[in-house]
């Protein structure tokens, strides 16, 4: 099927690739179907594009490239929502990025990652109970940004 998107234009998707968020995601609760499209091969970045709403698109990233120590614990009851039978380790975890005008100040939402069961493509934005995580962690360390800024972009 072909879907219309603001960011990627018209794209063809396979209905088998649609990821279902039974509860939607906070702020966009009514939209439950998305596709996850890699930015390009080997990139840690992906588009999370709504199938229903062309202008609803989020950038998500693999957490461990930027936060190697990132860890979340998902309660058994939550795993049931995703219909996980085997190991929780099989789940795919992504962080939603907020990219401001100065992209070097991009932040990641560590508090509430996107969790996908690749086997049945059931997904949710999971709210971790870990108090050390917030919705806005810089993905680059400040010293590396400063060094890059000195280089003159």
């Amino acid at each position: 099927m072909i879907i219309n998107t603001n960011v990627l234009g018209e794209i063809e998707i396979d209905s088998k690739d649609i990821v279902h968020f039974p509860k939607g995601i906070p702020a966009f609760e009514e939209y439950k179907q998305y596709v996850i499209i890699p930015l390009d091969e080997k990139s840690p970045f992906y588009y999370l594009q709504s199938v229903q709403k062309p202008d609803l698109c989020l950038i998500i990233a693999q957490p461990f490239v930027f936060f190697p120590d990132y860890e979340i614990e998902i309660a058994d009851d939550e795993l049931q929502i995703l219909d996980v039978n085997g190991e929780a380790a099989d789940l795919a975890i992504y962080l939603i990025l907020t990219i401001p005008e100065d992209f070097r100040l991009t932040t990641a939402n560590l508090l509430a990652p996107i969790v996908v069961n690749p086997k049945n493509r059931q997904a949710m934005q999971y709210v971790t109970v870990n108090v050390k995580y917030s919705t806005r962690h810089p993905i680059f360390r400040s010293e590396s940004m400063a060094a890059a800024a000195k280089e003159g972009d």
Partner: protein
Amino acid sequence: MLVLSRKIGESIIVGDNIEISIVDIQGDNIRIGIDAPKSIKIFRKEVYEDIQAENKRASGDLDQMKTGLQKLKEFKPMGNQRGGDGHVD
């Protein structure tokens, strides 16, 4: 909305297995204890509002997102590429 008064040490039962008790009151600060099954998600309302607001911000400006993503892709920060260790200082 049901509104009722409670004193310190008193509690409220919700459904079959949730008990909410008033632990302490200091001025306008009230400490609440909640006994509930693990399957019941409990968090401060601000947490959910914070996530809603961040999702809106993250998807707010698609042009900025596109430009930023392109730069992000090409960006090779000096030294340590990774962000913080995930801890809030």
